[in-house]
């Protein structure tokens, strides 16, 4: 990044007028610095998967694991694991493999990415940003003004890593500001790609704000997720196997207060009805033992919230509510037709019996994202995905992986969003080869 470009009229660089209303969270900066950053990154030239950037993320991974608060937060540990060099090397390989299939295509960074981070999944902004960073982009990441302790700790770690990292400092800003369309519009004018995480309402609020005509956009609306378990296989499984299922489900259920798009809201028990009831009851008891083994203490607020919610369901629909497990509430839905897609969160599991996997299909719609599964053979799952088809479903993964980040998200390969493909054909090969 050489030399600051000459000052442009404010209408061309609208971020100049809003920068003093933006609070930079990391790396530490003021309004003047933010303006200079936004101007300078217009000229950014970088290449995907540069060594220097891979190293930065490796240091970030180590710093997350060294942080006393983050090392105790399983979602942050998962993030650190995803950022470690071996995992990033796999991403780089995937990039190289995809590039090799199109030898006449050069992948270059999209340029400048504006990320509007969700407030329900603390760690997601780091994944979204890290992918953009790996792909050689500059980023502005907007975070909610009301962040929890985990986000604050992540920002602290990012700031510390950035303080010794010129590349990170020069090309990234993590910021926050109030609900102010003028600021979002100004930052949108800066970016070449805008990512809106955060559900239907956020998408509806942000999408009307114009982007530069050459910019692209990816939006992630509200999603709904559920689990499917083969009741007979579960009922017939040895105790330690059933414990493993419950343990895996524990993460899916309790991370992010069951409020992430991928958090399972329903467990469909696939099999004969007489088996399903017993299997669901055993599953709840096993899950409760897992809650106790891990010393997980639900907050009184979520206990009160999910209980009130379950009573409301019982008052109007044909369900059996199980309150005996302190860690969560089980709602056994007798009438499948009464099943809605309202999200309670905070540890409420609906159980539904279905004789066959295909009986779940009518429940699937475009807002569905992740199906977690156990005990179901791969062919049936592929068949299920194919039949659901255009109606929805983005991921079908084993129980325990609901919240795992994947570069293919909601049906889109995020690396494709962060890179532009330049087709290069022809040219005289001989002269370039002759150069040293």
């Amino acid at each position, binding site marked *: 990044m050489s030399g600051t470009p000459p000052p442009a009229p404010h209408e061309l660089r609208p971020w100049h007028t809003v920068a003093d209303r933006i609070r930079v969270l990391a790396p530490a900066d003021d309004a003047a610095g933010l303006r200079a950053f936004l101007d300078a990154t217009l000229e950014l030239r970088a290449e995907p998967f540069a060594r220097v950037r891979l190293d930065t993320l490796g240091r970030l991974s180590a710093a997350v694991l060294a942080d006393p608060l983050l090392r105790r937060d399983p979602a942050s540990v998962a993030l650190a694991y995803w950022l470690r060099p071996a995992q990033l090397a796999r991403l780089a390989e995937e990039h190289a493999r995809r590039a090799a299939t199109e030898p006449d295509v050069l992948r270059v960074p999209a340029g400048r990415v504006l990320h509007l981070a969700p407030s329900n999944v603390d760690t997601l902004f780091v994944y979204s940003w890290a992918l953009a960073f790996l792909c050689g982009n500059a980023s502005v990441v907007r975070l909610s003004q009301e962040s929890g302790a985990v986000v604050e700790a992540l920002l602290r770690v990012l700031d510390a890593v950035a303080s010794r990292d010129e590349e990170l400092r020069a090309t990234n800003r993590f910021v926050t500001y109030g609900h102010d369309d003028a600021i979002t519009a100004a930052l949108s004018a800066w970016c070449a790609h805008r990512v809106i995480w955060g559900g239907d309402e*956020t998408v509806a609020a942000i999408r009307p704000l114009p982007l530069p005509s050459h910019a692209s956009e990816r939006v992630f609306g*509200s999603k709904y997720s559920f689990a499917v378990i083969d009741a007979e296989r579960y009922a017939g499984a040895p105790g330690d196997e059933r414990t493993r299922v419950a343990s895996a489900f524990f993460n899916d259920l309790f991370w992010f207060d069951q409020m992430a798009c991928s958090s399972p809201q329903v467990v469909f028990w696939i099999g004969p009805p007489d088996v399903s009831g017993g299997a669901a009851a055993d599953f709840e008891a096993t899950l409760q033992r897992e809650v106790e083994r891990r010393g997980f203490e639900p*907050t009184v607020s979520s206990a*009160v919230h999910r209980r*009130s919610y379950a009573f*409301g369901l019982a*008052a109007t629909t044909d369900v059996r509510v199980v309150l005996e497990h*302190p860690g969560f509430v089980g709602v056994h839905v007798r009438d499948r037709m009464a099943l809605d897609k309202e999200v309670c*969160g905070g540890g409420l599991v609906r159980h539904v019996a279905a004789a066959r996997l295909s009986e779940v299909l009518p429940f699937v719609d475009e807002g569905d994202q992740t199906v977690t599964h156990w005990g179901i053979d791969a062919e049936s799952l592929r068949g299920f995905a194919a039949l659901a088809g255009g109606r929805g479903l983005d991921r079908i993964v084993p129980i325990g992986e609901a919240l795992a980040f994947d570069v293919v998200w909601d049906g889109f390969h995020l690396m494709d969003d962060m890179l532009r493909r330049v087709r290069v054909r022809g040219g005289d090969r001989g002269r370039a080869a002759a150069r040293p």
Partner: protein
Amino acid sequence: MTSPARELLDLPPFGLSQAEKRARLLPMLRTLTTHHAERCAPYRHVLDGVFGGADRLRIERIEDVPFLPVTLFKTHTLASVPDAEVVKVLTSSGTTGQQPSRIVLDAETASVQAAVLVKVAQHFLGRERLPMVILDHAGVVRDRRSYSARGAGILGMAQFGHRPFYALRDDMSLDEEGLRAYLTWAAGRPVLIFGFTFMIWQYLVQALERGGRRLDLAGGVLVHSGGWKKLQEAAVDPGTFRDRVAAVTGIERVINFYGMVEQVGGVYFENPKHHLQAPIYSEIIVRDPVTLAPLPDGEAGLVQVLSCLPTSYPGHSLLTEDLGVIRGVDPEGTGMGGRSFEILGRVPKAELRGCSDTFVAHA
């Protein structure tokens, strides 16, 4: 249906020991459970769906009586009488932005409710209606079709006063001149003062302290209700509150009041030991907030309130979102039977961040 509470109306409101009271209440609560199960479909569904079946209930102790979370009245209308018999609908907004509770009363429930409130209030305030100062502005009760929970509370209490005077102006400043004139009119008779706890603190105690002034309300009685949250934040405990009230007004009798629109008959005034006292129509249980197991006296948990009054809606057993602790039983030296307790605060609302709240402000 005749309210079971009628059987108790001839007794003094604190005239049964805890053991006697529980023996009287148990069959009444059983009857009410059956009554509501037969007449209120959503209530029956809850008994079927949560408590193992309306027909299979075994209520051997008061702790076995099924309960509803009090918030259910915000999301559902629960009635055990046909619409035509509803004479009054009580509403309460609770916290700003929430849906109000809707409580339907028929003539029987409304009349027993009024009788019980009078009996309990008279126990503390005497039979004579005292000159009354309301620590609020008159606007809060002006429009009777839309008044708030605050307004409803004031109107409920105002019936125990004579020619009530609203001591705050519309801008919440203390109308000292008007108040002094009212006290002159009261001519030395004891005065009843009523208001919400934080308003008494902010607009009476602190306002007088700031101006370095006093009012002479010696011999009066102050009844206050509403949460302590704002006072706790200012590190004001009940003892400090009473002392500072006495210092600026001369009032020695300060009585806290607890109750909720969702449960008629659950009216709790502070006994002389400064604990809330359950009258004979009502029982208090404290439960573990997570496991719901009943807790021994002295342990803090979620407060369940039971009342033998309501026949028009299934509100005889409610699990509140208030945290409290049982402080005593048939407290010695008070001449009052039953459990006494203290309210410690409210369970904070679950902050479940949906994926939709990145940019959209929610109320």
